[in-house]
């Protein structure tokens, strides 16, 4: 059997190797990075059947937990590694044509370290090790946001850096308190000892970790960096940041809340925060004109929905949340990747300038609309089933509290439908005649010559098509997916314990 630690080591070693390769083969990094991501996909697929039966516990440096660091590759770890490496692989294919400047070697190094950091976060079973991978993830994304080196990118990156660093600091304080009071950093060991800790310390640790990781997970009051960062980054990077970075942070913090800290008392508050996040995101997205800002705010909305589903405190809710994460990763990646070429071909960020672009870029536009429909939750796309499962899981709790939250979610969905269909209308039917609303007054004022807009290159269409297959035909594999998400839900809701590792 393959050792799951290779999922972390392969991208890391490749990232270190790229500067050496660059000396003999200047543009070799794009293919090497592709190979590394492919290796991770294959290892993940090979390990998946094993971990669905029993999680693999990996000891590092030969020291038995809790003395040394260890990894716990359960269903959550391997499924998220797969999500990360598959998305990474497809976006790397897209990058071949999209990233064409003199510092591509640095781009691919940062890209691979982003994959390393996020994979490490889902696999590790040691809370300080989690912090280290979290730092790798954060710092590589700060730099990638500023990759274009334009004013917006740098400003967004600084904002992200400041908020992210404060978040990391809070996380570190929480770890210090845990180590001071419990004398251990192993998550399973913490879980065993945590209930013996005084109430005020317990609450403080949970609050600090929620607010620390919550910055990266874009939970409501902590997400002001996200629209700038996700919209200023190169589109390939936006696809990663929206596609799995925020979801990884969210699932990890919820795993800590459930299986390590057993802090069920914060779940109701988190559900409310989730719905607020959702409404804020969707209403803000409705008012945007910049296509990437629409998508970024829509990510905030989706994060809110996922947070609500994760906070339902039932296996059905968590299972639905994971399905929604899979749907969001695929759909939002499509939307960002396609809009990258809309922007490149027309030179404009305003979606009102894309009138009738569907005639010029038919495949891309079709996939854009399909992905948008899946995010809204139109049957028979994957998003319909995940939203349906979330609503049913909330309804199954039976309380008025959850029913009222779900009705607010449906309100958010209507808003979501409104802005996505408005974009779809512009793409297919061109300029809207109604100028009363004010949002389309300038129309095609940028003077873009639609005749000159051509198709996106094959390297951009292939990854988008493959992601499109997941979104459109995902429902055919719904029973398999539900089996996998169900075992992730089981892992999250079960309290970790040191005894169960060996």
């Amino acid at each position, binding site marked *: 059997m393959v050792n799951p630690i290779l999922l972390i*080591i392969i991208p890391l070693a490749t990232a270190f190797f790229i500067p050496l390769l660059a000396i003999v083969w200047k543009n070799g990094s794009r293919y090497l990075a592709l190979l590394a991501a492919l290796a991770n996909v294959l290892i993940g697929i090979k390990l998946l059947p094993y971990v669905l039966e029993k999680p693999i516990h990996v000891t590092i440096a030969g020291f038995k937990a809790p003395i040394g660091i260890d990894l716990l590759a359960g269903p959550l770890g391997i499924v998220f590694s797969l999500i990360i490496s598959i998305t990474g692989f497809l976006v790397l294919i897209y990058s071949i044509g999209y990233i064409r400047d003199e510092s591509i070697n640095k781009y691919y190094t940062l890209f691979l370290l982003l994959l390393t950091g996020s994979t490490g976060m889902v696999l590790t079973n040691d809370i300080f*090790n989690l912090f280290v991978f979290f730092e790798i993830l954060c710092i590589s994304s700060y730099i990638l946001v500023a990759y274009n080196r334009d004013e917006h990118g740098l400003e967004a990156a600084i904002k992200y850096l400041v908020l992210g660093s404060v978040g990391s600091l809070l996380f570190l304080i929480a770890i210090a308190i845990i180590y001071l*009071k419990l004398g251990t950093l192993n998550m399973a060991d913490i879980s065993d000892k945590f209930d013996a800790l005084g109430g005020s310390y317990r609450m403080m640790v949970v609050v600090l970790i929620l607010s620390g990781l919550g910055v990266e997970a874009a939970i409501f009051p902590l997400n002001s960096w996200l629209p700038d960062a996700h919209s200023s980054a190169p589109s390939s990077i936006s696809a990663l940041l929206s596609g799995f970075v925020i979801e990884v942070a969210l699932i990890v913090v919820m795993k800590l809340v459930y299986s390590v800290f057993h802090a069920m008392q914060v779940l109701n508050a988190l559900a409310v925060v989730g719905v607020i996040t959702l409404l804020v995101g969707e209403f803000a997205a409705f008012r945007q004109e910049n296509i990437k800002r629409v998508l970024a705010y829509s990510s905030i909305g989706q994060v809110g929905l996922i947070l609500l589903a994760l906070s339902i405190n039932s296996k059905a809710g968590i299972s639905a949340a994971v399905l929604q994460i899979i749907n969001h990763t695929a759909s939002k990646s499509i939307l960002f990747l396609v809009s990258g070429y809309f922007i490149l071909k027309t030179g404009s960020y305003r979606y009102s300038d894309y009138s009738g672009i569907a005639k010029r870029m038919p495949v891309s536009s079709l996939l854009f609309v399909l992905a948008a429909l899946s995010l809204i939750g139109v049957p028979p796309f994957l998003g319909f089933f995940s939203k349906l499962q979330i609503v049913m899981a909330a309804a199954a709790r039976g309380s008025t509290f959850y029913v009222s939250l779900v009705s607010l979610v449906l309100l958010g969905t209507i808003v979501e439908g409104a802005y996505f269909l408005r974009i779809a209308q512009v793409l297919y039917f061109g300029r809207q005649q109604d100028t009363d609303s004010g949002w389309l007054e300038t129309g095609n004022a940028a003077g873009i010559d639609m005749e000159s807009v051509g198709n996106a290159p094959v390297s951009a269409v292939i990854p988008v098509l493959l992601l499109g297959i997941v979104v459109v035909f995902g429902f055919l594999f719904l029973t398999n997916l539900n089996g996998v998400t169900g075992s992730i839900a089981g892992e999250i809701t079960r309290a970790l314990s040191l005894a169960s590792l060996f």
Partner: protein
Amino acid sequence: MRRFFSLILIIGFGFYLVTVIGRIPFAATGEAKGSVGVQIVNDTVNDTGAANAVTSVVVLYRGFDTLGEVTVLFLAALGMSLLLKGTEEVKARVFDESFILKTGSYLLFPFIVLFGLYIIVHGHLTPGGGFPGGVVIATAFFIIVMTSEMVRLRENLVSILESLAGLTFIALGIAGLLGTKNSFLANFMGKGVFNTILSAGIIPFIYAAIGIKVGSELTGAVGSMFLSPFGKQEEAGE
């Protein structure tokens, strides 16, 4: 109004932090009985053969974290070289210091590097090791770069050293994975004679790799701030 609420929020949160953390006694060694730290201090010589317990924690017990921290430094240096490249403000800084300063820095250079190497090599015996040693070596280059515009440091050389050191760290880790212990970063070499240079198995080798990596990363970071060692000062003007 928004600022007022933000202020209230910050003060509230600060008050909360202070009240809870303030109750933790400062010298809290007795707090956590059976702490991992206490066990490590008791077992470290038997487990690792290193005379310096801190080093055994940094390189072996939590070596995987150290690999991550080295990566964080690598990222930071990479980000600096990516984002600072070619901005006008950076190019404008050229130093032309006095003869005494230049000669003095050349004179000091080999000694500082030697001192750095000493600290790295003795990391498992005395306080110090790869991180401080690497910083000392980078300081030597820093002084040269600060005082003299004559020095050419090849950017390629720095990144080759950095990559090789990182790959060595990982290769030593993988050797542990392939060895009998079947665990990444496991100490697959003999412990040797306690308190000698070649003791504690892989620890000195990993620390040497860390030292080279830290030294080259920081040198590269300094270089990307000043640019002059990379042969750019002709464009920078007088």
